[in-house]
């Protein structure tokens, strides 16, 4: 077991004390003191309620929190539970908290948890986000049951989210993954997901852990690799997912973790997506409508302004990345007044595909290519918000479906620009 070398001696000692387990639930944290106690309590409740006979362990991998996250995890792990009066734990439910080196990085946390799962020979492993205040005990059941009962390899979540949340997932990652890899998974970059012990060992054996995708966006990379390997993928409806209120979203970081990793995977898996393949089924268990419509306060004007500003200021960068027609179309778009502005689906798809090809050819630094996509995404986000401002859940779904179709129809164009023919 060479991967145990990344685990500290104390942590290995604690794991050896636990012994073999059936279920491992991993909670990666970094300054999540506001929510992690509640999350760990819900995980414990879920394990006791739905898997009382299985040997289980909760492992918290912390990236060096300064807000007492680890203490909160430990406190939540020993607190009394009142799941239901008739529920008793049949086995000891272990909880371990460890601090990994080189953090904070979600990929290192995931690797630590995978190494622990490998050492404990867990049959099923679930990862839960530490910042989900809406996590319910039944999420654990919905994530783990398809692995233990149905022999699935990977369980991905489906959430009910506000129509204006997950804009990068809805406008790029989901439609592009679906069209390129022929597998319709709603959350290819999951925060909460589960996988079999066998698949976990395969994840651990990948050679990504010293590279960028082994630090950030690792969940997306592993999902894509499972799809490419034609693993048995299932989607499980979990419930409402709300974003954490810890601070403003860093769009550049999000772009690196999602689009950067997705573009990188295209290169690694070229043979898998460039030839015709049968779609990979990913059935959804107990699926419900995924779009909610509460009131939201988003400043669309600023998105439009930052798009127009980006298009004019980044002209020398776009000249290296985009084809002339696409670049000209964007410049025309940037001159439109806000009320007439619309970034059409076809142009957005063409833009994304040209960025993917430029990433492959490394026409400039790859990280710069990903960063240059950010202002253009703001333009697309503006259009998405405008189109769906008064839309019902069904209309929003129809618009997302239409974008997916556009990505699928233009897939030959990706191959064309990938091979250098514009």
């Amino acid at each position, binding site marked *: 077991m060479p991967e145990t070398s990344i685990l500290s001696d104390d942590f290995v000692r604690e794991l050896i004390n636990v012994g073999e387990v059936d279920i491992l639930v991993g909670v990666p944290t970094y300054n999540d003191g506001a929510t992690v106690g509640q999350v760990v309590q819900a995980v414990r409740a879920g394990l006791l309620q739905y898997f009382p006979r299985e040997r289980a362990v909760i492992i918290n991998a912390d990236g060096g929190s300064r807000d007492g996250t680890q203490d909160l995890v430990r406190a939540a792990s020993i607190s009394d539970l009142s799941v239901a009066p008739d529920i008793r734990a049949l086995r000891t439910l272990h909880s371990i908290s460890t601090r990994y080196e080189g953090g904070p990085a979600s990929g290192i946390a995931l690797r630590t948890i995978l190494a622990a799962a490998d050492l404990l020979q867990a049959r099923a492993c679930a990862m839960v986000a530490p910042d989900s205040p809406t996590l319910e005990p039944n999420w654990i059941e919905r994530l783990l049951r398809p692995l233990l009962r149905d022999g699935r390899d990977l369980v991905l979540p489906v959430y009910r989210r506000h129509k204006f949340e997950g804009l990068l*997932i809805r406008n790029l990652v989901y439609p592009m993954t679906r069209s390129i890899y022929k597998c319709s998974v709603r959350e290819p970059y999951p925060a909460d997901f589960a996988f079999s012990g066998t698949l976990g060992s395969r994840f651990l054996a990948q050679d990504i852990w010293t590279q960028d995708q082994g630090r950030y966006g690792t969940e997306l990379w592993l999902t894509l690799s499972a799809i490419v390997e034609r693993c048995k993928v299932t989607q499980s409806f979990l419930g409402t997912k709300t974003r954490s209120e810890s601070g403003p*979203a860093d769009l550049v970081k999000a772009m690196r973790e999602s689009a950067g990793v997705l573009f990188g995977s295209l290169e690694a898996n070229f043979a898998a997506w460039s030839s015709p393949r049968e779609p990979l089924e990913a059935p959804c268990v107990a699926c419900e409508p995924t779009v909610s419509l509460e009131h939201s306060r988003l400043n669309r004007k600023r998105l439009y302004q930052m798009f127009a*500003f980006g298009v004019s*200021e980044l002209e020398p*960068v776009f000249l290296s990345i985009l084809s002339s027609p696409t670049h000209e179309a964007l410049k025309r778009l940037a001159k439109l007044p806000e009320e007439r502005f619309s970034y059409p689906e076809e142009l957005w798809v063409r833009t994304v595909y040209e960025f993917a090809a430029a990433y492959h050819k490394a026409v400039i630094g790859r990280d*710069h290519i990903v*960063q240059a996509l950010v202002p253009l995404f703001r333009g697309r986000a503006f259009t998405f918000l405008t189109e769906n401002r008064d839309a019902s859940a069904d209309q929003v779904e129809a618009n997302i479906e239409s974008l997916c179709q556009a990505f699928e129809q233009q897939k030959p164009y990706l191959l064309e620009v990938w091979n250098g023919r514009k």
Partner: protein
Amino acid sequence: MWQNFISELNRTMHEMVGSLGRFLPRFLEMLALAVIGWLIAYVLKALVRSALKLTRFDKLSEHTGATPLLRGAALPSPTEMVSRFVFWVAWLGFILIGINALGIVGLEEHVSSFFGFLPRLFAGLFILFFGLLAASFFSRAALLSGVNADLPSPRLISWAVRTMIILFVVSMAFEELGIGSHTVIVAFALTFGSLMLGFALAFGLGGKELARKYLERRFGREQPPNERAHEHEDELSPL
């Protein structure tokens, strides 16, 4: 007297023929070296051109900004420029070896100083090339960061970064070549110092709000509720 004149003339003629006899083989040697040198330089040029094409040197130069510069001056591509440079340096080297073989007093010193200069010339060009590459990379990074952080005038920031690095690199290259090194260093120090002072004043006077916000964000001080509300209003939820 006439006899003396004839004997002196004969002696001079003999000396001249002797000198010519000694010079001619050396001259032929020089010509042979020049011809052989030309052939070797030509082969070197072809090899360098192929190697640069294989390593996509033109693409790399495009990133450094060297290609647009050459294009603007109606000069050939960087691959062509480098291969021609190698050709001329190699051939010139052989010609100078040939001239050295002529044994002309005073030239030998110049020839050896030329060969002594070559490593510095290559080091200077190396510094210049990678300096331009760094200038291009960091100026683009500054431009992208400026645009994504919604800073005013990101192009100006990018231009400033590029100019400072190029100034720094050029002064290093000149120092390596030993051309006006003191003047260049003083000029660089003055320009760099005044630019830094200018930025410090501009940031201190014009950007104190920005600095305060940055420091508050960096060190985690609570923001006033009205500012936080504004930030939330602008916030996108991408993932």
